[in-house]
């Protein structure tokens, strides 16, 4: 992250003097802290050794590097939703995809399948998504055999090989679509999951549903982990509520298209949801109640709402879903929280609020961060202005000149 390159867009909006990166200050910004300080106008932020050391108006002190934000909005780096970033390069190239396991050798649930073992920070997706204003994601296991897809956790987009944080998180399918994986009925999901929980009480030799490794991991997950259930139908969400209560586990529901029908119960049970703000079609018989004000109704009832986009390559599209949720009644500040700090809290990572003592992961925006015409001018990860260059910006620079000279292959190598 040392080779900070001032790109064209940056030069247009910001004045940036780069020396070394021990300290950095950003002047004259509209800082949406997402914390107790609220939104500060014409404010500065001071960063030392990757940490925010001060936020406020007219901060004193010189820094090695200064960015004049010229009034631009700053938010914490955004949450990209549940993605498989770092687990995929091209979706239709199977050898570049590691997010799911379908043909496991044993006919058991595999809680021990941990996608973090397949993570690579060098995937082009990471640089592309990060330069669009995103600092972290929930690294998800997808699909898989039977009901349990596997384990993941939060992953920070700082380029490290093992930049995982927060609690271990297990991904579980209980919807109608995935019932084909368990013999044809979604009731079989609960049969298997109850069996797996019962295995925790059985001796190793008597386990029916889990391997020994899986049993150890499920035990830990039950105590300290988070269970992410994929469900849309209200009746399925009701079953999740029952399971969570019976087993006293921490849970999140992803999809949740009909969750608005159970908003009060979800709020009372303190179960957060992760929704796609663009879902409004009866895409299947689990989603007859999908509606664009789902996020608004849930957050109004006090449910903790996060967003996801069902996309990994185009994870950046998640902002459009959040903006749409606002257009259909969600409180703007709650939507922006959902896009920045909420997931870090829910999945028990470090605080992403812009506050003294917190890691400096933030974005300078060209405009309203939930607006489709806005974009990230500069992303700062752990105090470092990252390179905003990606495969995609390099392709643009290669094809933007109308004169190809010796040929495009010689431009911007």
């Amino acid at each position, binding site marked *: 992250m040392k080779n900070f390159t001032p790109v*064209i*867009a940056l030069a247009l909006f910001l004045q940036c003097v780069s020396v070394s990166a021990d300290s950095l200050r950003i002047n004259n910004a509209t800082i949406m802290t997402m914390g107790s300080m609220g939104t500060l106008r014409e404010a500065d932020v001071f960063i030392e050794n990757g940490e925010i050391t001060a936020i406020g108006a007219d901060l004193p002190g010189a820094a090695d590097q200064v960015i004049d934000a010229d009034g631009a909005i700053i938010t914490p780096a955004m949450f990209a939703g549940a993605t498989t970033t770092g687990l995929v*390069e*091209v*979706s*239709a*190239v199977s050898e570049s995809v590691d997010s799911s396991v379908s043909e496991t050798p044993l006919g058991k649930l595999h809680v021990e399948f941990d996608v973090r073992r397949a993570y690579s920070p060098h995937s082009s*997706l990471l640089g592309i998504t990060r330069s669009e204003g995103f600092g972290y994601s929930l690294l998800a296991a997808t699909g898989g055999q039977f009901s349990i897809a596997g384990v993941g956790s939060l992953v920070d987009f700082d380029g490290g090989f093992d930049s995982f944080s927060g609690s271990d998180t297990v991904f579980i399918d209980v919807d109608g679509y995935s019932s084909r994986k368990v013999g044809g009925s979604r009731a079989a999901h609960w049969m298997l999951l109850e069996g797996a929980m019962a295995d925790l009480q059985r001796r190793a030799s008597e386990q029916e549903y889990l391997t020994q490794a899986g049993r150890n991991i499920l035990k830990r997950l039950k105590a300290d982990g988070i269970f992410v259930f994929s469900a849309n139908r209200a009746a399925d969400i009701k079953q999740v509520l029952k399971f969570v209560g019976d087993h006293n586990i921490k849970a999140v529901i992803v999809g949740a298209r*009909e969750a608005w*029908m159970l908003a009060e119960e979800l709020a009372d049970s303190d179960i957060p949801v992760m929704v796609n703000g*663009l879902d*409004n*079609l*009866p*895409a*299947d*018989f689990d*989603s*007859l*109640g*999908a*509606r664009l004000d789902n996020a608004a109704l849930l957050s109004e009832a006090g449910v903790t709402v996060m967003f996801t986009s069902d996309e990994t*390559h*185009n994870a*950046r*599209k998640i902002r*459009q879903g959040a*903006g*749409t949720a*606002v*257009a259909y009644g969600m409180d703007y500040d709650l939507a922006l929280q959902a896009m920045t700090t909420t997931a870090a809290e829910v999945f028990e990572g470090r605080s992403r609020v812009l506050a003294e003592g917190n890691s400096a992961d933030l974005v300078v925006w*060209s405009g309203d961060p*939930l*607006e*489709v*015409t*806005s*974009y990230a001018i500069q992303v700062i990860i752990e105090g470092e202005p990252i390179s905003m260059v990606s*495969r*995609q910006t390099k*392709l*643009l620079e290669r*094809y*933007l000149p*109308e004169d190809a000279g010796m040929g*495009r292959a010689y431009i911007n190598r």
Partner: protein
Amino acid sequence: MTHPNRVEVFTGTLLATSLATSLCLADTPFPSTYQPPSHTPTLITNATILTGTGQKLEAANLYFVDGKIVAVGQDQPNLSEETRIIDANGGWVTPGIIDVHSHLGVYPSPGVDAHSDGNEATAPVTAEVWAEHSVWPQDPGFGRALAGGITTMQILPGSANLFGSRGVTLKNVASITYQGMKFPDAPYGLKMACGENPKRVYGRKGSGPSTRMGNIAGYRAAWIKATDYRDEHANYAALSDVEKKEVSKPKRDLELETLAGVLDGEIIIHMHCYRADEMMTILDLAKEFNYRVGTFHHGVEAYKISAELAENGVCGALWADWWGFKMEAYDGIQENIALVDRPEGSCSVVHSDSDEGIQRLNQEAAKAMSRGNKAGMDIPPERAIKWITSNAAKSLGINDQTGSLTVGYMADVVIWSGNPFSVYTKANQVFIDGVERYNRNDPTKQPVSDFELGQLLEVSQ
């Protein structure tokens, strides 16, 4: 509207039906039965109008009567007595939005297997099938798209095949039949597909093509047959009645009839193609067989050949930000639409290929406009709106009837709650041929498909 017997077919008298059968069906099977109902003459005042022809008019009026635009501009037109006046309060007005690439009806919601009618994936060349015969008019997606300002769309088959099927252009009006939606006299499209999809589908089946060179050979073989078929039928038609008695009438072949329609310039090619090199190969193929490629769809690498597309008069129907879901989509960039738009004579189109995207094609255009401007291209809203209106109409061969707010054109109009290039803006009122088909503030003007009737959401509201 030139169909001589449409009124009679619509009213369904016995005589008229038999007339229609004898006069029309051979030439125009499955004819449109769409007839816009009458409407009150309508004046929209105090609007910021994007005309679709590249102009932005402030504090302007739009007047339409009998389904046609009568006046647009700052001047106050002469109104008929019973005119409905809508004060847009400075709100934005655009032509109805047109999506050139939709699978509504052929891959409808709910997306169950029984509804999977978009790919006749049984042979690489199936030019004999017509997408309209798969359209389920009760797809709830049509109503959702209407709420996003979509007034016209082309329904295409999927891309499993080298030649997929005829596409059909529909008006976004609720109807029990697709014929009731069919855009009168719009040219048919023919969907063709390049690259990974056909070779994957037929490579797995072992029948081929299994390579890109196999794809090209497949197209060429089909065009050779089609050329012979076209010539055979043309030669027969040129004979005198006496001569015709001496030779046998050439047999009709549905597949070759469609391909011959392309060679005759009556059917427009809509070519699914991602890679720049493949698109250039397809342009050479079109030269070899003397037909025209109307539009490249998806064209994730179209920005690499934007000058060539403009020179050849080919539209590029593109996404704002999709990439990476397969190898041929790996080089996708968000400036694609703006770069394709840049050369003189270009035809950049934003398409959806998605039941979600079609609901907010204005936002897709907004994203593309913003990225173009970020890259230093100066694209104002009045230009970007063309990507989803007049350029889209050109792609479908209906730009002499709709796609812009031009006097005499169909009154396909959207009144927006604000600047349409924003995530917060909604289509408030949608007019098709002058008829208010959607009103956000009036539940009686919000169509509900039969499928949704009595279902959970409908009951709960």
